[in-house]
C-alpha cells in the first residue's frame, strides 16, 4: 500500500505539470496525465505565471533581456483523465493563455486558448507505461499585435509517442521517460520532430507530502518552410524544476512548482528562457472501498 501511496503522489505530479511558453510553444512536454491505480477519473485545474528572462540565440548563446522589455505569460489549464480499464487511461488538457508584452512604452496584451492535448496511457507492465498523444492546435500561431502577444500556439497538429518507467523505494521514487513528437504541416511550415528525455526523483517527506525534482531535455529538428530547411532553426532546451505535492484529502491534492531553464550558454538553443511558477488542484475520483 505504501508503494501505491507513492504512485498516487506521482500521479498528482504527472497530471499537473505541463509548462510551455506561448511565444515559443513547445509541442512536447510533461503532463501526459496519470491516474492512481484505484482512481476512475481525475480533474485538475491549474494556474501559473512565467516571465521571460532572456533567450538562447541561434548560436546557443544565452542573451538576457537587458532592454527593459517584458514578456509575461499567464496560463490556466483544465486537465482530466479517465480509466477505460485499469491499465488504459485517456487524458485531455486544454490551456488558456494570457500574455502581456511591453517594450519602449508599447504594451501588447493577448489571450486565447493554447494548444490542447489528448493522450492515451497504457501500462503493459507494472510501473512501465507507453503513451501516445495528439496535440490539437487550438492556439493562434500568427500574431496580430505589434509584439505578438496574442500568439498562443504553434498552429500544427502533433503526434507523440513516449514510454516511461517508475521505480518506488519509499520514501524515494524515480521516474524516467523518453518520447518523440512529430508535428504535421501548418500550411507551408513544418516544425522539426523533437525528442524529449525526462528524469525525475521524488521523496515523500511526510504522509501525503512529497518533494519532486524533474528535468527535461528537448531536442528539436530544423523547421521547413515551403519545402526548404530553415538554417539554424533547430532548437534544444534543458528545463528543471522542483514541485511540492500535498495530498490534503484522499481525493484532493494541491501542488506548487517552479520550472526554469538553466540559463547558461549551450544549455538552450533558439528558445526563450522563462521561469515558471504554478499551482494546481487535482481531484481524483474513486469509489469508496477502492483505495
Amino acid at each position, binding site marked *: 500500500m505504501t508503494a501505491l501511496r507513492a504512485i498516487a503522489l506521482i500521479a498528482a505530479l504527472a497530471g499537473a505539470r505541463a509548462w510551455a511558453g506561448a*511565444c*515559443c510553444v513547445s509541442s512536447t512536454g510533461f503532463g501526459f496525465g496519470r491516474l492512481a491505480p484505484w482512481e476512475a477519473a481525475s480533474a485538475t485545474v491549474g494556474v501559473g505565471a512565467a516571465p521571460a*528572462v*532572456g*533567450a538562447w*540565440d*541561434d*548560436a546557443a*548563446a*544565452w*542573451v*538576457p*533581456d*537587458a*532592454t527593459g*522589455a517584458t*514578456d509575461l505569460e499567464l496560463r490556466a489549464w483544465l486537465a482530466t483523465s479517465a480509466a477505460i480499464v485499469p491499465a488504459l487511461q485517456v487524458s485531455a488538457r486544454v490551456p488558456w493563455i494570457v500574455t502581456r*508584452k511591453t*517594450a*519602449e*512604452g*508599447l504594451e501588447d496584451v493577448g489571450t486565447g486558448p493554447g494548444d490542447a492535448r489528448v493522450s492515451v496511457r497504457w501500462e503493459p507492465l507494472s510501473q512501465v507505461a507507453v503513451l501516445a498523444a495528439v496535440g490539437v492546435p487550438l492556439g493562434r500561431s*500568427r*500574431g*496580430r*499585435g*505589434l*509584439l*505578438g*502577444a496574442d*500568439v498562443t500556439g504553434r498552429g500544427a497538429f502533433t503526434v507523440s509517442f513516449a514510454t516511461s518507467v517508475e521505480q518506488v523505494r519509499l520514501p524515494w521514487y524515480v521516474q524516467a521517460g523518453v518520447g518523440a513528437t512529430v508535428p504535421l504541416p501548418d500550411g507551408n*511550415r513544418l*516544425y522539426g520532430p523533437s525528442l524529449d528525455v525526462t528524469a525525475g526523483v521524488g521523496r515523500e517527506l511526510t504522509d501525503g507530502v512529497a*518533494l519532486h*525534482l524533474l528535468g527535461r531535455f528537448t531536442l528539436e529538428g530544423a*523547421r521547413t*518552410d515551403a519545402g526548404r530547411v*530553415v*538554417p*539554424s*532553426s533547430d*532548437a534544444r532546451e534543458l528545463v*528543471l*524544476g*522542483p514541485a511540492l505535492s500535498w495530498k490534503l484529502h484522499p481525493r484532493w491534492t494541491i501542488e506548487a512548482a*517552479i520550472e*526554469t*531553464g*538553466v*540559463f*547558461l*550558454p549551450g544549455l538552450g538553443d*533558439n528558445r*526563450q528562457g522563462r*521561469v515558471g511558477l504554478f499551482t494546481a488542484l487535482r481531484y481524483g475520483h474513486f469509489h469508496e472501498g477502492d483505495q
Partner: protein
Amino acid sequence: MRRLAWAVCVGLTACGTAPAPATHQPLGSGTLTVAADFDGPITRVGNTLRITVSDDQGAPVAGAAVAVSATMASHGHDAQPPGVRAVGGGAYAAGPLAFPMAGRWAVQVRAVREADEGARSIEVVVP
C-alpha cells in the same frame, strides 16, 4: 533545491553575448535596385526603414509598390508588416516596424513597378 533553482535563474541572467552588428545582403536580381537602411539603431519598436528604389539606369523610381516584411527565421515568427509611404524622389519610408522578440531577424523589402521588380534583405539583431 528551490533556492538553488532561483540562484541559477537569477544569478546568471547577467551573462550573455552582445548582439552582432547588422549585415546587409542583396536578395533579388530584378531590374529595380532597392536600397534600405534603418534610420537609427535597431530597437524593439518604432523602427523606421528608409528605402530608395531606382531603375537599371540608376534613376529614382517613384510610384512603386513597396512592401516590407520581417521574419525571425529561427523561431518562425513574423512581425506585423509596417506601413510604407512615398516621401518623393524614389524614396520611401516604412514604419513603425516592431519586432516581437529579441534576436536575429531578416527584413525583406520588395518593390514592384509594372513589370519591374527588385528586392533586398537586411539581417538585423534586435536587442
